[in-house]
């Protein structure tokens, strides 16, 4: 853990040094405060800061200088792992390209985000990420998790029946492919159980707004949601 952090920090320093030596220092375009607001579209899936863990997406601590698809304990798409092996490393330039249109830069990524076409918004977001992730707050694992509103608590407490979940999943896999492939509809395969339960409750309560999902979750009770979470969290993306 410590070693990993040290290496990430080292890589970050290297990348920063390389950038500094190869070109005149990049002026800081982005505005961190505005970037924090932009990040609200991301934080349903990605955690940063003290105690950040993998959720639906990988945590972003020590992001800059990190090889793509390289963190332990997160089930990346094979496309993302391949890009990492081929040398993709996250920095301001690669993030800018990726965030503009993720599926164009990494076809097959399971990140369900269409992209940020607004250049300034990307600069703001990257400035925020640089500040929020480079301080490597994961170095303090004993720090409490960031407070998250209580949601889906009753379903969280139920041990989901995966067999029931598999039957109920018939409703989901008409659109969300069981293989984990995405072709315009997000993958829901292999999400952490808590993240899955949380997402369904957020659709059910219209915290997340989507016509189809709010309809599909309207008739799901705690048992059903727990069952679906048990089933989908147990699947591995192909």
């Amino acid at each position, binding site marked *: 853990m410590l070693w990993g952090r040290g290496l990430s920090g080292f890589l970050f320093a290297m990348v920063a040094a390389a950038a500094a030596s190869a070109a005149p220092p990049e002026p800081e375009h982005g505005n961190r405060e505005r970037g924090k607001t932009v990040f609200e579209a991301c934080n349903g899936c990605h955690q940063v800061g003290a105690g950040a863990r993998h959720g639906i997406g990988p945590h972003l601590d020590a992001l800059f200088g990190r090889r793509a698809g390289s963190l332990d304990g997160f089930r990346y798409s094979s496309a993302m792992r391949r890009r990492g092996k081929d040398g993709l490393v996250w920095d301001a330039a690669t993030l800018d390209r990726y965030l503009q249109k993720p599926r164009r830069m990494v076809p097959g990524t399971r990140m369900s985000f269409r992209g940020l076409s607004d250049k300034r918004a990307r600069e703001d977001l990257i400035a925020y990420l640089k500040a929020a992730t480079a301080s490597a707050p994961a170095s303090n694992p004993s720090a409490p998790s960031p407070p998250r509103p209580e949601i889906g608590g009753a379903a969280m407490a139920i041990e989901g029946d995966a067999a029931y979940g598999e039957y109920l999943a*018939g409703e989901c896999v*008409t659109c969300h*492919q*069981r293989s984990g492939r995405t072709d315009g509809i997000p993958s829901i395969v292999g999400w952490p159980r808590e993240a899955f339960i949380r997402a369904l409750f957020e659709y059910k309560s219209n915290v997340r707004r989507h016509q189809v999902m709010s309809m599909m979750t309207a008739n799901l009770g705690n048992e059903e949601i727990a069952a679906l979470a048990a089933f989908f969290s147990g699947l591995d993306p192909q």
Partner: protein
Amino acid sequence: MTALTRRCFGMLAGAGVASLAAPSFLRAQGAPHVVIVGGGAGGATAARYIAKDAGEAINVTLIEANPQYTTCFFSNLYLGGFRSFASITHGYDTLAANYGITVVNARATAIDRQARAVRLADGSRVAYDRLIVAPGIDLIYDSVPGYSEDATGIMPHAWKAGPQTQLLKSRLDALEDGQQIVIVPPPNPYRCPPAPYERASVFAHVLKAKGHTGSRIIILDPKPKFSKQALFSEGWEKYYPGMIEWYGPDVHGGIKGVDPAAGTVETDFDTFHGALVNVIPAQRAGRIARDAGLADDSGYCPIDPASMRSMMDENIFVLGDAAIAGDMPKSAFAANSQAKVAAMNVRGDLIESKVFPARYANTCWSLIETDDSVKVGAQYAPTAEKIASTSSFISQTHEASEVRKTNYEESLGWYAGITADIFGA
């Protein structure tokens, strides 16, 4: 597998083998046999789910006349030039190779309910313990006087995807500026309620893209209103002003008939000429279901809302467009949803696997113009009388273009998802 279920399906298998006339189809000796007639959205899904969930405990045979299946859903996108024909055509190889389903490429001609066997065009018989009937629709050609099967080469219906769809596209693409299209939609109930109007939209898209601003699309509807009407009307005005004219029966007074040779549609109000006339006649359950006595006077097949089991025969389930599914529309999404309920009940019958309460859903996306797609959807639950809608939504007029674009991308995702769910991936 528990000892109980093993003993149980062993007992049933005895009955199955006794009545089996074509044991060459058998995969696992002694396992009960499910036969599915029709390899569309309902039938193929049912085959895959039974085979996937029961493994070798049930033998599954899928009988389908066509070696490849072109989906009616998304065929309007092919007409509009948004998709290739190949991209909406699917084979059965994965179902056979990965799920052990016996795919019989033959036409099923009759069901012998007494003997529990399906007769094929070559005279051979396939015995079943449970039968799933998913033949889709038959067109009632003479519901439009003057129209006939022979006339479909001149006035294509393209309501069953395949050569008819290709013919309609070639006719559309050959139109010259100023030439008129006439569409005669079907009366209710019919396959895919918004589709005639999505079709008008993609026709207009093609004409507009070619600069054929002098062309008109006339819709002579036997119905006083139609699916997603406010959304289509708004879209037509926005994208194709003056190009699409829709007339309900209060204006045209009734469709009196068509003259294929003259290219005309006669109504009480006037006679309309089209360089292309797209006649979509009235519909009913596929013939094999009606001949087997599974349909009622409506021409469609009544089912038990909780299981999709035929009200006429407890060994038979009817799915998709052929069934009377209460509030559910006749759509691929609905058929796929019903298939999972039927598959679960078939397994419950034959190997006593657990049967959960039925749940049904449907969503239909319709493309109005590039990157502008609208949707309607509902969830359903069985009541004593019918499959009843429990919650629903529909796109709103005046929505942001970003919302509509997201809808379109979602529809592409749905197509990839449902075809993987139907044909295997």
